[in-house]
């Protein structure tokens, strides 16, 4: 099921687009230092990858700390969109590392007023679990076990790879005119820092 969400390709994203995006984002970050620079609202406590039966799995413990806006939105029935971005990059010495594969694991967290329970949905699989309190839901969300990343057969023997993990919490219930709002009020999107480590083979 999770593999269905994987977008794996040898060519990866177009280099020009990635480069330009990087420059644009860098410029944006210079202009808007608040973007993704809050004091670690999402902390990746522990992360590791291991090979099992020819498949690389990811284990991670992520500590989600919701800001006031997110808590308020959740309390008012809005669904938080939690996105785990897992990137596999080839390591280069002189040039930037080209993206080799990217995997997106998406979750939805919302408060169900009638039942007074927090519902955590795996948007990739459709599974959902309810919790009587927010903290157990966040803990369950932050505990990632045996998440398949990539088939080892797809990796080149001669290359070395790095794995990157980042979590993003987004209040995506902001379509229409509200979309513009997100341009100017950045606490509606909480982006964690990248955690990177080599894929030990």
């Amino acid at each position, binding site marked *: 099921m999770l593999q269905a969400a994987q977008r794996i390709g040898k060519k990866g994203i177009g280099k020009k687009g990635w480069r330009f*995006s990087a420059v644009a984002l860098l410029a944006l970050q210079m202009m808007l230092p608040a973007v993704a620079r809050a004091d670690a609202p999402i902390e990746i406590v522990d992360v590791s990858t291991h090979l099992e039966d020819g498949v690389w799995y990811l284990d991670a413990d992520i500590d989600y700390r919701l800001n006031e806006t997110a808590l308020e939105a959740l309390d008012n*029935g809005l669904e938080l969109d939690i996105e785990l971005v897992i990137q596999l990059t080839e390591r280069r010495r002189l040039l930037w590392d080209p993206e080799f594969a990217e995997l997106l694991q998406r979750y939805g967290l919302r408060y169900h007023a*009638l039942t007074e329970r927090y519902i955590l949905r795996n948007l990739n699989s459709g599974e*959902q679990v*309810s919790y009587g309190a927010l903290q*157990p839901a966040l803990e369950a969300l932050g505990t990632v076990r045996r998440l398949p990343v990539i088939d080892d057969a797809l990796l080149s023997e001669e290359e070395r790879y790095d794995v990157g993990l980042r979590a993003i919490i987004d209040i995506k219930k902001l379509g229409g005119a509200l979309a513009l*709002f997100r341009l100017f009020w950045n606490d509606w999107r909480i982006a964690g820092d990248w955690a990177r480590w080599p894929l030990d083979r």
Partner: protein
Amino acid sequence: MAARPLRRWGLAALAVLGLSLLFAALLFLASTVDDVDRFGETYNWIFLLNLAGAAILLGVIIANLLRLVREYRKQAPGSRLASRMVAIFVVLAVLPLGVVYYFSVQFISRGIDTWFDVNVEAGLEDALALSRATLESRMREHLDSTQQVADTLSGREDRDMAGRLEMMRRSSGAMELTVVGKSSRIIAVSSERSVTDLPEPPTEEVMLQIRQGRPFVSLDPVREGYIVRTAVAIPGLHPLDELRVLQGLFAVPERVGLLADSVQEAYAQYRELAFLRQPFTRSLMLTLTLVLLLSLSMAIWGAFFFARKLTAPIQTLVAGTRAVAKGDFDTRLPLPGRDEMGFLVHSFNDMITRLAEARELARQSEQAVESQRAYLEVILGRLSTGVVSLQRDWHISTANEAAGAILGVDLEGAVGRPLAEVAEDNPLLQQFMAVGRSHVDEGDYEWREQIVLRGVGGRRVLMCACSALPGEDGAPDGFVIVFDDITALLQAQRDAAWGEVARRLAHEIKNPLTPIQLSAERIRRRFLKQMEDEDAKVLERATRTIVQQVESMKDMVNAFSDYARAPDMDMTRVNINRLVAEVAELYRVREIPAAIELRLAPGGCAAEADAGRLRQILHNLIRNAVEALEGQEQPRLRISTRATDEFELRAVFITVEDNGPGISAEAMDRIFDPYVTSKPKGTGLGLAIVKKLVEEHGGWVEAGNREEGGVRITIALPADEEARSAMLRREIRSSEFRRAHA
């Protein structure tokens, strides 16, 4: 000049780019607002586009504004109009936009507030509470039945559980009953779901609550609807028995679930809306503000653009006018269009064409006038007749060279000056002016008169004619006086008359003289010896007197004959110094009473002349001087020569000076006329002959009294044929030359 349109077009292109970016951003935004995920990916681009577009547009506006301010300060043509138009455009744009913006903001904030009603909110809260109460009643029932099942299972072995559990599930109406032991070990399961569906073990939350000794019941929303999850501890027979937990899953009827969902959705939507009210309002206002700013920017830039578009032809017109003012009539302005401004520019071009034609005509007229003036000037310059035009106040308007030469003053250089001022040092001009004034004072503006001027160089006889220049007020605007020096003409006429007299005298008198003399001598020879002594003496005295007087008359007639005679000139190169020395030596030999001093030109002095005539001239001059010195104490005679080439004329001057009594003023005017003499012994033809011979050479002779006493007679002779020719033709340079040496 080419940089300005380039910059203008560059600014316009930038403005269009900025607007395009802003529109692109808005379109981009509009296309992504319905797709949340896509918006998340692209909002950086949208922001960048917005930022870039706004920055470019703002930059263009600032550049335009700075340029306008600069032009305004420089008072560039059209800048004031452009400023006014920009201000009007901006005001016209800001006012309606501001009004629309204000009412839109009010409408949005109040409109959104009306969405939320206290009653609706309370009703939803009540509906939610009612739904909860209904479901909680059902949950309590399920918890009770679960508790009953648990009580029934109390004390039973694990292996007996499965069969018993199935029966209990059916009786209790549960969807699934599960008994778990320590570490969530499933002991028994009874489920109406398919066998492929794995049983759901109690969650940590459930187990935690059970361990705390409290039964667990919850309503779990699932994909298909709702289920009620209950969990209780199965009472053990012994406190140390393993904790066993019975979990029951009860399906909520579909209709109840749908109703509950409906209430939940309505409530959730309302809460969402309530929560998003402020961001929504802010977003709308932000959008509105962006649109307002965009519209304002467009309006301001448009104001600049159209103001420039409208003032450009005016600036072109001003530039054209300035060019025309500077005399550039080739300027043709480009037609801005077919509107009124185009008509104006067309008229301007037409006017410039006509002006250029008029100017060309004026230039041609001026050229013609100038040509005529130059022609007249040449004619006046070549005229030997003097022409002077005077203004009403006697300032000199024009004068030709001949006028100056005749009057002995540079009248051409004195144009614009009062005639009286110019005449201060010139007696001839003073007399000339006095005659003119006397006529004008009497109101006689048109007159003709022969006037005699007396100066250092002798008398001058001028024939003058004056005409008034017509003025606007009837009074004369000035005068033109035309005059000719007829001194030479009169002299020539006199000379001719005297020549004729001399010829007749020589012819009529000389013929009877010889018979008279012969007759007297014959009478003397025949009758002298026959007469008495007394009578003989008388006869002898009478006949001697007759013979002497006849001889004297012969001399006189010969002198007349010489005066009238005009043999051909024998022109040779004559060494003047040697000739003067030779002639002077003759007089030294004769031991005349005067001491002759020679001052000959150093370096030689030669001229093309008739040596015989020159010798005669010198004899006459010396003889004239010697005669004038008779009876004078310490008589001295000085002869000097001098060569010059002034005014491109080579000439020789011979000056004879004595320290005699001089010549009276009355005699001075006619000293060169025949029979004018102040000496008792002179025939009166010496100087007349000198003048005649000198003028035959083309030269002139002048006589004057020396300041220290005595007479100075100066002869000027042309040294070569060219000078002789110029002097004979009375060329301008010869007049100037003579004036310089007067």
